């Protein structure tokens, strides 16, 4: 198994399964997560990412299989494990009746930290997420990006060894996302192990040393972003868009085209090739006339399409 960082296994799962009634949200997955790495569960909504995260967060008992976190059993030792975890949930759970700083103070008390320690850490964390000047403001009027940064600061009040982030930048504008990514990257540099879920391929590429591509509660593939792209995608991708009336006919014709693989989407046709420009020249030479064309490198989106037959954000 590929390892990005240390050799100490912090989270170990074997045949991990979560069922709701007869529905298997997580269906027998195996993984080892190592200290210091950033590991991502990449998949569309409903793939079982959040259920996996809740099990790791010790707030959802596994239906079957083994799960060990920091060497302990999440069902029996959940409280002690959670004392060493930080959790950034998908929906912010900040108390909007309190100020920015009070949210940190209250949260620190949950961990039984002395008030002086909490105050010191709160100030340092607000500095870290660049919210010091808003410390005394109410939470309610803050923008989504600021709230998310505050949630991240709050999750760090107990100086966790593992930080769990469920869709950390969903719903944020591009600039706010980059600020969050930057802060998470710094945390990783400090040695915090990051475990996150995302359905954004750029986020997975930016943040994760290793990824598990999840679909229907199972792992479709696992590896570093680069390895996954090399393994499951051609070096280049040629995207073609035709007149909607010509779309089907073009798709038929391109099926026999000498490409590694062709993928027909509702609005575009993707050709997986080694050399995009020469492929485009051949397409034109065969008499097809695309309205637009784009040559790009293979991405995780292509990996996902290849593995599941669906797009990530559908």
């Amino acid at each position, binding site marked *: 198994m590929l390892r990005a960082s240390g050799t100490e296994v912090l989270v170990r799962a074997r045949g991990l399964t979560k069922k709701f009634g007869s529905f298997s949200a997580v269906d027998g997955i195996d993984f080892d997560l190592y200290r210091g790495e950033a590991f991502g569960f990449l998949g569309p909504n409903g793939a079982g990412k959040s259920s996996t995260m809740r099990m790791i967060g010790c707030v959802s008992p596994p239906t079957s299989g083994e799960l060990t976190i920091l060497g302990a059993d999440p069902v029996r030792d959940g409280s002690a494990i959670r004392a060493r975890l930080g959790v950034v949930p998908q929906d912010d759970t900040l108390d909007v009746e309190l100020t920015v700083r009070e949210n940190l103070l209250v949260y620190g008390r949950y*961990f*039984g930290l002395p008030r002086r320690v909490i105050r010191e850490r709160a100030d340092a964390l607000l500095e870290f997420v660049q919210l010091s000047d808003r410390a005394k403001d109410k939470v309610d009027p803050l923008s989504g990006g600021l709230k998310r940064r505050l949630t991240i600061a709050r999750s760090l009040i107990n100086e966790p060894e593992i930080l769990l982030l469920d869709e950390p930048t969903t719903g944020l504008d591009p600039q706010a996302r980059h600020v969050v990514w930057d802060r998470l990257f710094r945390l990783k540099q400090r040695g915090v192990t990051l475990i996150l879920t995302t359905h954004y391929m750029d986020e997975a590429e930016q943040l994760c040393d290793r990824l598990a591509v999840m679909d229907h509660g199972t792992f479709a593939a696992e590896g570093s972003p680069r390895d996954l792209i090399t393994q499951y995608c051609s070096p280049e991708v040629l995207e073609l868009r035709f007149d909607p009336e010509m779309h089907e006919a073009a798709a038929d014709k391109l099926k026999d085209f000498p490409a590694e693989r062709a993928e027909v989407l509702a609005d575009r046709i993707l050709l997986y090739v080694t050399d995009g420009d020469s492929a485009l020249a051949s397409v034109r030479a065969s008499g097809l006339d695309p309205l637009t064309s784009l040559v790009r490198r293979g991405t995780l989106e292509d990996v996902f399409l290849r593995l599941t037959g669906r797009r990530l954000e559908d």
Partner: protein
Amino acid sequence: MAALAPSWPSSSMTFRAFQCWLTVYRRIWRSSVWSSVLGPVFYLGAMGFGLGSLVNKHGTASLGGVSYLAFVAPAILASSAMNTGMQEASWPVYGSLKWNKIYIGAQASPLRPEDIFRGHLMFMTMRLAMNAAVTIAFMWAFGAVRSAWVLLAWPVAVLTGVAFAAPIAAWAVLAKNELSFVYIFRFGMMPLMLFSGTFFPLSQLPGGLRLVAYATPLWHGVALCRALSLGAGLGLPGALGHVAYLAVLAAFGIWAAGRTYRRRLYV
């Protein structure tokens, strides 16, 4: 030194959860203070003096010979404790999952569902104690108290409130929507308030209905508070019986909430 501050409260998970509610309450206490103070004043004024002046004209033999104000005041103490208990255990519990998500945030910390519940119940108990103290102070100021035993009516009122709050919280944490709360107030709290000997002695009710009233928790709170405030009408065994009934209900609620909170939070 702050770092070496007494460790017993911070080591108690329940107390950690309770502190969160205290911080929130410091922010919002102003809005609750009016209902806590004006509620008993309005009730004591309207029932005790308004309705009371009519009742007293027709003689109060059936009330045990005391003025209507003295009769009704301890019952208002008990029933407003029920009211507070039900209020604090319904919307705030639901809101801790759906609105301000205090429970969801706390869940990711070392606190277990039982700690989260007990911390919240501790806060509800504090609110009950505050409101009951205010009500007893007004009872005394209005001249409605006949005995120093009324001091014991304070913990009894709190117990009455907890006997409602704990089971209601156990149920509210599983509520799918807010509509259920409207029903429990309309079809639970209202009839209890009207038919538990609050505003008239139960002897005025037909026999069958009287038996039903004896079985309701509020009647036990009302009967005990009234006996303590009037300093008459109840022996020790009867008093202990009332306390036992309310304590069993509270204990059941605490046990049930431990289970329902776990079921709701650890999906």
